[in-house]
């Protein structure tokens, strides 16, 4: 028997490992959703404080950076949209801005920012708690680490990512309008611009937007929590957990986003 694993065997092993990982994350999310749907009264006050802190860290404290990226993205996309729509007219300008900023780039860029800031932080924090035996301590006190650590973080990341995406879209569209004023041939009143943007928007866009914020929020928090809670017990496992959390979250969000886009355009 050869000591070197055959490519087929290696592929099979990798596939099983990937499927097992996906199942773990799905189980974590399923368990969390069951808890979340139990209602607010079942979450002790101290758990709600964790939730507030998570929203503050992931949402409020990320606003300046998200705002900056939104302004720059809105400006860049605005210039390109003006150039592309020059001959075709204002309708194409609105469609381009909605397609790029609302349907695609907005949710994706915000998800990347949340992964970089909060996904990595959550994974590192939980891994560090595991290294320092804080999780054992919680469990021994009768505080379920899942209820205390995972549920509020998941809920917090979802709320924050929805809010950040709305803020990103509004800021980037506003930035696009300012660029239109500066670069466009004729001045466009803000009300006309709003009408231009609203025209191509449908209820389907709202569904896409929700799918591209709520699910990535769940995925980012679940993957980060999973990596943190399953990290090794050495201090060198903390950065590894953070890195794995970021890489796997990026892969998951990209896949999900591409899937939703494909489904939306097929539909």
């Amino acid at each position: 028997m050869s000591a070197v694993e055959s490519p087929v065997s290696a592929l099979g092993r990798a596939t099983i490992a990937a499927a097992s990982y996906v199942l773990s994350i799905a189980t974590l999310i399923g368990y969390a959703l069951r808890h979340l749907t139990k209602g607010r009264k079942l979450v002790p006050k101290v758990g709600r404080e964790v939730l507030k802190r998570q929203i503050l860290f992931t949402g409020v404290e990320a606003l300046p950076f998200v705002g900056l990226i939104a302004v720059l993205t809105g400006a860049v996309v605005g210039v390109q949209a003006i150039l592309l729509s020059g001959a075709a007219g204002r309708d194409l300008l609105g469609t381009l801005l909605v397609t790029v900023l609302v349907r695609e780039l907005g949710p994706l860029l915000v998800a990347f920012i949340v992964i970089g800031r909060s996904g990595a932080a959550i994974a590192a924090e939980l891994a560090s708690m595991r290294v320092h035996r804080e999780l054992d301590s919680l469990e021994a006190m009768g505080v379920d680490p899942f209820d205390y650590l995972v549920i509020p973080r998941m809920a917090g990341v979802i709320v924050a990512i929805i809010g950040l995406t709305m803020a990103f879209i509004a800021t980037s569209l506003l930035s696009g309008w300012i660029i239109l004023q500066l670069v466009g041939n004729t001045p466009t009143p803000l009300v006309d611009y709003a009408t231009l943007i609203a025209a191509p928007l449908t209820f389907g866009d709202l569904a896409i937007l929700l799918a591209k914020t709520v699910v990535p929020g769940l995925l980012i928090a679940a993957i980060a929590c999973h990596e943190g809670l399953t990290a090794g017990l050495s201090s060198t496992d903390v950065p590894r957990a953070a890195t794995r959390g970021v890489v796997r979250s990026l892969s998951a969000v990209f896949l999900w986003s591409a899937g939703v886009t494909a489904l939306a355009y097929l539909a």
Partner: protein
Amino acid sequence: MSAILAFSGVSWQPPGRAEPVFQGLDLELQAGELAVMTSGLGGGKSSALRLAIGLESPTTGSVLVCGRPPGEVRDRIGFVGGEGALLSNLSLRDNLVLPLRWLRDPPEAEVERKAREVLDLFGVEELPAVAPAYAPTNLRRLVALARAMILDPALLVLDDPAADFDESSAEEVWVHLLEIARTRGLAVLTAATEPPRLAAARIVALSGSVVPATRRFSAARGRTALVPAIRAPIVHPDIIARRHP
């Protein structure tokens, strides 16, 4: 009187290990008693504590706290791990009251009263409003002890409670623990590399081989000193001499 903690024929063999760390461990702890598990490194004393609080299940035998599996009576058990294990992202005070808020969620005035009561037990007057990382080691240890007491447990489980103290302070800690056990009617199970010089403490030496289960408390292959707790003086004569020369 039924035991607060009962180990019956307990053996512990962690996954991947060929032999049990210890086996045939029998121990009954009543209210007011203090037992100290001792062993060398890897001798199983911390594992025995994890069995007592239900973080691990015994390979054979049973562990009961107040007549029930420890996982079902977590609010009757106070635990302080080896490093104290305060949560690094909470202030000292929030750490102190976390189990009370989580499990019972009483009004804030009651939280404040209980916090004051358990801090008084350990002589802590004021808690600085800082995270554990910014507090002295001894204060962290005392807050962890106070946190373990905040739910009025029946069983207090402590991993090397005197580890961060110098020799004379460590003796004070042991004396104080025994006083707390007796005055508040709880059982205290601890682990320590160096057993305390407390005549009233029961020393359970774990060293890895089998001791007949007929002995009242024991574990394997090593020295097992049996010191009846109830009639013994509260502290070792040496300590009394040092405290009252």
